[in-house]
């Protein structure tokens, strides 16, 4: 069983479109995250949710809106996609504040054309 699963794995879309990426974890963790990995492999946190509540919201354009319907799911919706949004987006989860580390999903490669 995949611990943290993301769908879709690949997403190619045109500029201006709206798209969503879904994430689910079956580890029983109470905290979930979205990270963006750019073309230089640099990983930056975007959002963090604990028990469906937003606890970290880094400097991210408000075109990005996370939604957590329950503590096992954290989806990422992106409006009006831009070329610069092309990246790999990783979902992760942890128990509490992640003292034992985060478990990452396999990533979603988003390409905006």
């Amino acid at each position, binding site marked *: 069983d995949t611990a943290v699963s993301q769908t879709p794995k690949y997403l190619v879309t045109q500029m201006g479109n709206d798209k969503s990426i879904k994430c689910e974890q079956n580890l029983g963790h109470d905290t979930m995250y979205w990270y963006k990995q750019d073309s*230089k492999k640099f990983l930056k946190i975007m959002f963090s949710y604990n028990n469906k509540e937003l606890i970290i919201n880094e400097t991210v354009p408000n075109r990005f809106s996370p939604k957590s319907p329950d503590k096992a799911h954290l989806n990422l919706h992106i409006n009006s996609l831009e070329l610069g949004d092309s990246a790999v987006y990783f979902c992760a989860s942890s128990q509490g504040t992640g003292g034992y*580390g985060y478990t990452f999903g396999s990533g979603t490669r988003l390409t905006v054309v």
Partner: protein
Amino acid sequence: AQSVSQHNHHVILSEAASLELGCNYSYGGTVNLFWYVQYPGQHLQLLLKYFSGDPLVKGIKGFEAEFIKSKFSFNLRKPSVQWSDTAEYFCAALTSGSARQLTFGSGTQLTVLP
């Protein structure tokens, strides 16, 4: 704000060579430290972690890391690398406090030549 630095951007080694990847963090308080590995096209996997106690921690696949508090360092080592160790390696730090988050270094690409 805390930061994590990895000074080696790309390391190329031959099989059986010894490996040491540098990692420094900038945070004066209690910090948890991690090394993750990302094989080509895959997600990040945890190699090892340090919380407290013995500063020499052992992880999976024969990797180990040493926490040196006075140097704010947490270098990753492996005595003899294999071709299958070719991957991107990330050091990360988790600070104490109410808004904890895992901050990553910029990564080191390791290429092992057969």
